[in-house]
């Protein structure tokens, strides 16, 4: 009985962790390519989930078609946002960039609240609702699909970044923008593409998250817990973001269940941030982050 609960928690944790990993991947991608910290990433996830909801319920499109159209819409929105709001801020000091993306997050959050209201909505999950048995534990199918889909998605990304021309040019820009310019890479396009990929990945994460929880306007704050995932993994490390996300997801769920009787409710929400504090004490650059060497 104890083991079954533990297994359920771990699987739920991995599902949440996959969502965090996707959002964290978006953060890290944008940060590596453009040196911009996109605080609006959780709101992009929320926007994508709500758009998918609209496509599927209000426009009565079949799930796959609605999902695909949402991805295209989010790609366009992300590209427009990048070109209008973010591109002018490249090279400005960090606080200004953070504030611009925070402002953007506010705008998106307000727009979602204005357009869809503040009540919880039930997302039309394409996955069957009945739990299946996995090693003796009853598990929500949506969670299993989330873990599986994220794993496939991340494998595709790995192949994309390692072997495709576009992926290599993004990595090159991330490493040294000036040299990338000199080598003939269209750096502006790389910036836009990194935002598009981040938004698409966030949308996928958002749709999955809404499938096994609810569609609600505080999804932005839920997604903000992907920030601890990046800190844990190191801000410029893609594998770190993924591993960090999974660790945070599992730790949250375990702490939520096992620690709440002792430390009160709400442990699930706060565990991620406590982990941030602990990690920052021990390794100020995250598990896999590169130490910044400053020269004067």
């Amino acid at each position: 009985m104890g083991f079954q609960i533990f297994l359920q928690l771990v699987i739920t944790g991995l599902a949440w962790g996959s969502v965090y990993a996707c959002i964290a991947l978006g953060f890290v991608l944008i940060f590596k390519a453009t040196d911009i910290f996109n605080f609006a990433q959780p709101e992009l996830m929320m926007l994508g989930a709500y758009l998918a909801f609209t496509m599927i319920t209000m426009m009565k499109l079949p799930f796959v078609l609605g999902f695909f159209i949402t991805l295209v819409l989010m790609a366009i929105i992300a590209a427009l946002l990048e070109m209008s709001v973010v591109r002018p801020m490249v090279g400005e000091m960090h606080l200004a960039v953070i504030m611009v993306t925070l402002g953007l997050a506010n705008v998106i959050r307000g727009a979602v609240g204005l357009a869809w209201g503040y009540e919880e909505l039930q997302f039309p999950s394409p996955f069957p609702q009945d739990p299946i048995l996995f090693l003796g534990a009853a598990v929500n199918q949506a969670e299993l699909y989330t873990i599986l889909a994220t794993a496939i998605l991340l494998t595709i990304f790995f192949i994309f970044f390692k072997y495709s021309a576009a992926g290599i040019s993004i990595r090159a820009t991330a490493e040294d923008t000036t040299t990338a310019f000199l080598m003939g890479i269209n750096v502006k396009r790389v910036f836009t593409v990194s935002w598009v990929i981040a938004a698409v990945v966030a949308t996928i994460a958002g749709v999955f998250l809404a499938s096994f929880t609810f569609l609600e306007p505080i999804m932005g704050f839920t997604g903000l817990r992907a920030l601890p995932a990046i800190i844990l993994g190191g801000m410029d490390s893609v594998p770190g973001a993924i591993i960090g996300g999974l660790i945070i997801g599992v730790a949250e769920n375990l702490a939520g269940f096992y620690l709440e009787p002792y430390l009160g409710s709400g442990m699930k929400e706060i565990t991620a941030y406590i982990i941030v504090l602990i990690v920052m004490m021990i390794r100020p650059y995250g598990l896999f982050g590169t130490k910044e060497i400053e020269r004067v």
Partner: protein
Amino acid sequence: MAVTRFCVRDYRQDLRIFPSPAAKISLALLFLFLLVLPYFGGTYLVFVACVCGVSVIGALGLNILTGYTGQISLGHAGFMGIGAYTAAVLAAKAGFPFWAALPLAGALAAIAGLVVGVPALRLKGLYLVVTTLAFQFIIEHVIYHWESLTQSDKGISVPPAELFGWKLDSYESFYYVILVLAVATAVFTKNLAMSRTGRAFVAVRDRDIAAEIIGVNLAKYKIMAFMVSSFIAGLAGALYAYLLGLIGPDHFTFHQSVLYIAMIIVGGMGTVLGSIVGAVFMVLLPEVINAISGPIASAYPVLSPRIGAVAVMVYGFVIIFFLLFEPDGLFGIWIKLKRYWKPWPFSY
């Protein structure tokens, strides 16, 4: 010819707080105006002015940490919350008088600043931001869940302040307390900026490794910045508690932290006048939004539960607008105006 800060001829002129006689006169006029404000303004106007005053104090505190020392903090509302709840608990549950609860609130917030500042010594840039964010959420969590102390959602009711026997239970009377404290904080911050400590702060912001090389003790000044900033934030929070009479957990959330950063950016980072102007602007903004969204809500009733979202969007737009077009904020606009008109008609 008026001497301004643009062309100073010796060190003594550079050290002056007021760059010109015109600045002194306009400041005196402003002070007179603020003194008589309660007599011709309605109660609501005085309340808004009080909120402005509290926000000015808070913004000045954040400006010391982020504007002068460059430590970006998303946890400012958390420190204000600590100050507010300390004052509230001391006043409501332990019967402390106003003049004792206020500094104790600041002191406890300063201790919290120490707790945040020591780990923050090693952290740079975005790691620091997320760590302060983590503190913000943890403080929010503790405020919400330590029910025996903070009564969570129900909030704590704060008795009105009493000073030298006067019961300050009206907005008009408390207004003067806030005004005095706000002016004192502004004077303090201005003097701090021009002192050796202030220069050390700016050195830490601009090039901290170089500062350490020339002998600025990084640890001492970073921690000092955190503690001073949190003390002022605690004061502002405590004043807010006395002003509102009832505080709850959602007065000190992440949203408020973002609001304070917006204040100092919109106003002009690293300047005292900028923080003041930014704070007043960001407090008046929701009033303007309310005035506009009222008619909209009655015209389109379906929107009325969602009308708060308009405020959120407007905040976002204002922040983006200022950062894209005028990164130096309102203060920057003012300086540019002055620079244009001073040598007019020969400006080009």
